[in-house]
């Protein structure tokens, strides 16, 4: 259990709010689709803040115009990886943006162990900091069980 005010990892757009229902998630997907964004689904067992490349659950859904379709994919991802972090990511290919423009977590493991802070004492008062994901103490194939 993490000790921050919401007791969990606070990445993404809506981590401080009560868990979004599927109906609420569909509204967010619609908002992105109306703006021409492409949705994709990513999952990981290591949500280290510098772990940029979560696994892709299939390709970005460039041609999908329907929130129900994205939700279906999400449900399939949840079924396959119930104990992983899953995030919905919207991409905007407009020139000058060409980046992610929405991102929020839609599935979490039942327990979120969080991170340890390792302080390596250097010369003088300098300290070198390392954030350590507790979950990575176990081999990749044995996490989230």
């Amino acid at each position, binding site marked *: 259990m993490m000790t921050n005010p919401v007791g969990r990892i606070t990445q993404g757009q809506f981590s401080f709010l009560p868990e979004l229902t599927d109906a609420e998630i569909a509204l967010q997907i619609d908002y992105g689709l109306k703006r021409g964004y492409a949705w994709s689904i990513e999952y990981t067992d290591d949500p280290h803040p510098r772990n940029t490349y979560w696994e892709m659950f299939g390709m970005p859904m460039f041609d999908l115009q329907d929130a129900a379709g994205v939700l279906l994919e999400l449900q399939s991802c949840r079924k396959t990886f119930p104990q992983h972090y899953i995030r919905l990511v919207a991409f905007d290919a407009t020139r000058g943006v060409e980046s992610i423009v929405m991102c929020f977590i839609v599935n979490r493991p039942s327990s979120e162990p969080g991170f340890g802070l390792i302080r390596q004492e250097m010369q003088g008062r300098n*300290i070198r900091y390392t954030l350590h994901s507790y979950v990575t103490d176990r081999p990749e194939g044995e996490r989230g069980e």
Partner: protein
Amino acid sequence: MTIAPEAGTDGAQARSDGPTAITDTKRRYRAGVMKYRQMGYWDPDYVPKPTDTICLFRITPQEGVDPIEAAAAVAGESSTATWTVVWTDRLTACDSYRAKAFKVEAVPNNPGQVFAWIAYDIILFEAGSIANMTASLIGNVFGFKPLKALRLEDIRIPAAYIKTFDGPSTGLIVERERLDKFGRPLLGATTKPKLGLSGRNYGRVIYEGLKGGLDFMKDDENINSQPFMHWRDRFLYVMDAVNKASAATGEVKGSYLNVTAGTMEDMYERAEFARELGSVVVMIDLVVGWTAIQSMSRWARRNDMILHMHRAGHGTYTRQKSHGISFRVIAKWLRLAGVDHLHAGTAVGKLEGDPLTVQGYYNVCRDSFTHQDLPRGIFFDQDWCDIRKVMPVASGGIHAGQMHQLLDLFGDDVVLQFGGGTIGHPAGIQAGAVANRVALEAMVKARNEGRDIRAEGEEILRQAARFCRPLQQALDTWGDVTFNYAPTDTSDFTPTAAVAH
């Protein structure tokens, strides 16, 4: 003086029937003085080239001074002219070096003031140097006696000159990718009190704010290295707080370490130390000057650092409508000079700012192409030529109860900084941060769901406060705090002109 009063000129109506440029070179270069418009600084038929810089000045001529002669004088004094004819002009292609006033119009609803459009050839400005451009455009001319007052309202910078600048080292798109934060404004707070905290106490505020849910904390503009807290001490404690908060939340966190100092050598030393400690961001104050800003931008580019700009001092020359420089011009120059964050006003907070005018500053920071927009004070189309976008910062007297207004005014790409609105929370700094983060996320969610946040904003906040006691406390404490004073800097335009453009 050549620019002597002329009878019958009221200053409100521009006249173009006076003397024009003298083309006979023998007469033109006879020793002595002559009117600026006769020297070639007024050319109503001039068609600006795509490579010209165009400035729009607001001129208040002294009593009886003809507006066109005043405009020609501004063109002259901001380019090649001196007060008398010099024969050495004839050793140069002097006509191309002369800035040319080509249009003068009365300022709507401001008798005695005129807008003057002046074009400058691209040869006049050194590539990649805001210092050089400003030395001309806002140099001697601002002290010119025949003018009561002078203001640089807007500037069109040609693509050819834009491309000589590197621009923001990071820019708001890459900043978001580095921070892994998308689809909502970023949240920050300035550490308070500004002065007097020891390094250890200071770091406490940083830790509480970041762990509570803010993305950034910030040094204030006048926190450098004073007796109560030397800079190294501050950096060491702050970075411990940043890393501890990052571990507690799983988010990338930052704190703008102010590296402003008395010399460039000191600034570099401080910036290097910030980098060594793993900070993602450093900050400088506008008062360090253009050359120092460009140097720090280059340093930031080489060191993967976000460069935060606090616009300390700008109010001395941007606020009064009759004299100085509009902040939209400063924002354009700063985008070229290469800052990643720029304080651009709040409209609803404690500091000066008409909402539309402030939105104009934001657009200048964030647009790929800025279109003429007279209600927002934007007189020119401006192609930014893919130069990176600056993240605007709203800071100064804002609180969670204004979240709907802030999101509605500024959209997602902004850092909202609640200093007092976080640290002054009755239940503590973490609670203050939670209140702001919950208010923000609830408002973004509601907007995306299609709700009209301008109309329903207060209700959305009340609903969110039902599951978040810190937000309820924030609304109880500050809910009805507003700063409703008439702005001093608003745009002057004729509404029909806006439609016609």
